[in-house]
């Protein structure tokens, strides 16, 4: 086994070992703290291995692949499992394990008030999640990627429903699973089509144009579900019912980005279909703009960030649609850092004021300087202010999209950049500056170092992430040079304008939304897309289902009952034939003899 393979296996199995141990040793899990220690230990090992792996790759080490046959039938191997240690998986692995580690350490403080058994359960889920995510990231083929894909879906379900006693959390968990599972059928059928065409689940196959379009469009359906693109984005805002660190890790930085990662991974397939890429461009840019509009009118800080995540994932999808793997993938990376940072900072604020509503906060920057600074850095990075990491990645995206489809997606994304700065400016101004809105906000104070430490790490990465651009490009073998054209200048100007406008509208303690946004607020409250699905489920699926259940009970089974019943009735009707009187039987015998004789004569 070569060094990269060993490292990848350590990265994969360290969290698996933690999860397995906690699963089979309930005593350990229920004590809480040991569970946290084990999980974090697993993540540290995994992160260390990931760093070494990435260093190897950056120094030009060879890509490595190790697989074992997993499904065999007849004389052919259907599928293999194993690890693939190349540039894509190494850089993604670092992002995933690093953010996971930060979030887990943050959770030590954030989840401190939980009972030990539920604290232990929380960390067990985290270990399971990291393992599942690594299965996905290190997958040597699309089947294993699908396996990890489904597993992270389940851990997402478990973590959204972590507060399972709360009905809204229970509903949100199930909804997230259903929506993504629905979309996953696309991935499944895509795998079927791919396998029927090539006999394998490799992502570097050459396909006929029609097959390539079919496969990638089917894959893209799954991406739309997982990465919360319109119109399957509905589960992500609801998923905010989960604990905030979970939102940071799964529903902002890593799991929702799995969809984007799939496109990056299967880039050789996506390259073969211009149709799919155009669809991606349209869906991505549309979602970016649409979700940013909805983010403008949310009052729950986590909902703002959730819609913002949809919106940023739209950027990535659009970049990949425009053919820039580098742009999509690098934005995924920087987004993972600054969005996780924003969520954790928001979590820290929520932890202090015990409310998600930005109107219940106010002036937090003064009382919680670490959190305030972290949130502001995150907001600036997200908005793409020059110098921050988000600027560099967004620039790559915008550059890639600029000349596609008559500049329309480009304009949409520029507009989104402006809106992004505006809604982030609003949260910063309302929640972190001005006067505290109440007792809780006035007495908010910073939490311990377990919560502050991760903020510092992520803030540093959000601030300086731009420095990774060149190495990142080298890793993926793409040329990169920062150029100052009209695009970046325009984007930066729009971002600054957004902040300025937000300050103008919401500064000086004005909390009410301006009248312009009233209409938008109404649209957001109408939940039109949600209502469409609810109609489909309650009025169509459940009606068909109960109709069939009735049919089964009263027609199909009814008919069988009826056959039994009629048999009994037939017997009852035939019973009078048995009179018990000798003359009747003699008569029957005589008739029989005569009949037989007649038949014999006729012959």
């Amino acid at each position, binding site marked *: 086994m070569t060094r990269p393979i060993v490292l990848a296996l350590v990265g994969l199995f360290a969290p698996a070992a933690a999860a397995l141990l906690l699963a089979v040793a309930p005593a350990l899990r229920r004590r809480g703290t040991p569970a946290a220690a084990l999980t974090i230990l697993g993540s540290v090992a995994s992160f260390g291995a990931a760093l070494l792996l990435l260093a190897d790759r950056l120094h030009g080490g060879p890509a490595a692949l190790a697989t074992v046959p997993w499904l065999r039938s007849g004389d052919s191997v259907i599928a293999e499992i194993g690890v693939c240690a190349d540039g894509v998986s190494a850089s993604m692995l670092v992002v995933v394990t690093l953010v996971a580690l930060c979030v887990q350490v943050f959770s030590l403080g954030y989840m401190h008030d939980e009972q030990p058994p539920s604290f232990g359960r929380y960390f067990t889920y985290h270990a399971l999640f990291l393992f599942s995510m690594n299965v996905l990231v290190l997958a040597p083929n699309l089947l294993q990627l699908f396996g990890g894909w489904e597993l992270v879906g389940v851990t997402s379900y478990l973590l959204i429903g972590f507060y399972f006693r709360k009905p809204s959390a229970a509903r949100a968990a199930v909804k997230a699973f259903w929506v993504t*599972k629905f979309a996953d*059928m696309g991935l499944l059928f895509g795998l079927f089509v791919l396998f029927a065409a090539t006999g394998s689940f490799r992502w570097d196959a050459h396909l006929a144009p029609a097959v390539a379009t079919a496969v990638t469009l089917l894959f893209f359906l799954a991406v739309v579900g997982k990465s919360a693109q319109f119109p399957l984005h509905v589960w992500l805002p609801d998923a905010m019912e989960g604990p905030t660190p979970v939102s940071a890790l799964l529903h902002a930085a890593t799991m929702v980005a799995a969809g984007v990662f799939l496109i990056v991974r299967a880039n050789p397939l996506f390259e073969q279909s211009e149709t799919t890429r155009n669809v991606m461009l349209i869906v991505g840019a549309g979602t970016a703009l649409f979700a940013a509009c909805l983010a403008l009118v949310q009052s729950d800080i986590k909902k703002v960030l959730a819609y913002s995540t949809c919106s940023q994932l739209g950027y990535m999808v659009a970049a990949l649609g425009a053919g820039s793997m580098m742009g999509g993938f690098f934005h995924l990376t920087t987004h993972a850092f600054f969005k996780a940072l924003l969520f954790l900072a928001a979590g820290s604020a929520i932890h202090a004021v015990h409310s998600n509503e930005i109107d219940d906060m106010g002036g937090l920057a003064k009382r919680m300087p670490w959190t305030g600074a972290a949130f502001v850095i995150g907001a600036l990075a997200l908005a793409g202010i020059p110098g921050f990491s988000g600027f560099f990645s967004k620039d790559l995206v915008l550059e890639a999209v600029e000349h596609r489809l008559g500049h329309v997606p480009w304009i949409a994304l520029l507009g989104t950049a402006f809106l992004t700065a505006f809604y982030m400016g609003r949260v910063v101004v309302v929640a972190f500056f001005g006067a505290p809105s109440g007792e809780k906000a006035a007495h908010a104070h910073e939490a311990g170092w377990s919560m502050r430490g991760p903020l510092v790490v992520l803030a540093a990465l959000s601030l300086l992430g731009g420095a990774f651009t060149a190495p990142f490009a080298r890793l993926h073998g793409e040329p990169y040079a920062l150029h100052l054209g009209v695009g970046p200048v325009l984007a930066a100007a729009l971002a600054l304008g957004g902040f300025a406008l937000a300050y103008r509208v919401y500064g000086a303690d004005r909390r009410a939304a301006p009248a312009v946004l009233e209409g938008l607020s109404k649209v957001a409250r109408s939940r039109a897309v949600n209502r469409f699905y609810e109609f489909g489920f309650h009025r169509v699926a459940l009606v068909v289902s109960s109709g069939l259940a*009735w049919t089964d009970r009263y027609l199909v089974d009814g008919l069988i009952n009826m056959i039994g019943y009629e048999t009994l009735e037939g017997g009852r009707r035939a019973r009078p034939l048995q009179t018990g009187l000798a003359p009747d039987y003699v008569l029957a015998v005589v008739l029989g003899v005569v009949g037989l004789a007649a038949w014999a004569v006729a012959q």
Partner: protein
Amino acid sequence: MNDHLLSLIVAAPALAALVVMFLPDGARQAIRWVSLLGASVSLLGSIYALATYDSARAGLQRVEDYPIVPSMGVHLRLAQDGWGGPLLLLTGVIIFAGVLASWTVSKRDKEYFVLLLVLVSGVLGVFVSQDLLIFFLFYEVAVLPMYLLIGIWGASHAVPAKGPFQAAWKAFAVGDKQYAAMKLTLMLLVGSAAIMAAIFVLYLQAGATSFDLAHLAATSYDRDTQIIVFPLIWLGFGTLAGVFPFHTWSPDGHASAPTAVSMLHAGVLMKLGAFGVMRVGMVLLPEGTHFWVPVVGAVAAVNILYGALCAMSQTDLKYIVAYSSVSHMGVVMLGAATLTPAGWDGAVFQMVAHGIMTGLFFALVGIVYERAHTRAIAKMGGFATVMPGVAVFFTLACLSSLGLPGTAGFVSEFVVFLAAWRSGHLIWTIAGVLGAFITAIYVLRATRAIFWGPGPSDDFHELSDARRTEWGALIILGTSLVALGVWPRLLLDPIDVGTLTHLARLVPGVVR
């Protein structure tokens, strides 16, 4: 090599039953331990049999042959092929867990365990019989004890009379446990009658000298005979496999049956049906199979989708699981209908995967029912607070049921659907995948309704987590589900050996 292992595996539960019969009535512990011992011998024996099966040599191994009626060519001929090991193992696991789950049965416990063990001997016998008549006898031994087990130890509920056929309702007391037992037995016996007719046709056409399956398989029957006989076997055995529209004994039967009986019935008995269709119907009648297979596959697709849709609006927990069995058995039949190595591998793997999964489900349902005294999921809620362990295993069963990678359910569904798609049956595959999606809807709805939400209401006083023997049942079943999901080749490799031997008769191109 002849170690008489197969005789031991098959006979152990029956011998245990014999011992239990002579125990005094009050010997509660002895009855249970002897039963568990019988089950353990079968379980350990089947593990050993599976591990020592020589895949390289393939074919029939551990052949034991005892002439019963030499003049007619009836032999008690036991042997293990590639499929035998995994299916014996499934049965061993289920009966072992089933005995553990039955630990608390108090009503006429001696008779209960005797019947349960006799039934299992029948099941085990079917999986290794190489003589068609003996195969059929074992089959009947497996089916008939159900009548008493449900009729005596079952539970009744009311089903309101509605629809065009309500005249029958009043006569039958639909929903009653005796009704369920009677319906199940009669429907399966009608199926048996069809099978018996088919057996005699095959026996006579093959020269009336032997019931040996190898001999029967070596005979070529004329095309018309095959086309007439195949549906008899398909529907005869298929009734037990829950083939639409002859599945309706299943929801009522499973809903009325006591815990371990449901486990065995959905877990292994329904597999006998599917096994019979493949092992007898398809292998002996290649031309009949090729003629009918479009119908078999289409009906299987209906099973998957129809079963899942029916399950979605059930309000009784046992009915949900029962309809999900109807749906999942469709996957077995769908795999069989592809007539490809992968499809058959998947079908047999699904027998095992579904058997374990549904065994786990019914064990959990039994635990919940025993404590909540209701099966109406609308009345439940928040049970995870007081029975966290049960909630975990229930979730695991759900995840395998909806085909989550890493659980056994994924392997079989994926392989079967892939095989169906690859052999050009796009509609079947779409129906199957949709069925799996609908499964995700109804199982997670049920989980949420039962276990999630605010703590249980005051109506439930006796809720508690699983107890000692119950843990045993849950752990052995849950671990098997995950182990097979993570490393399916444990069973898939031997299954494949069996598949290739059997399928070679239908599809000449398939050679090892």
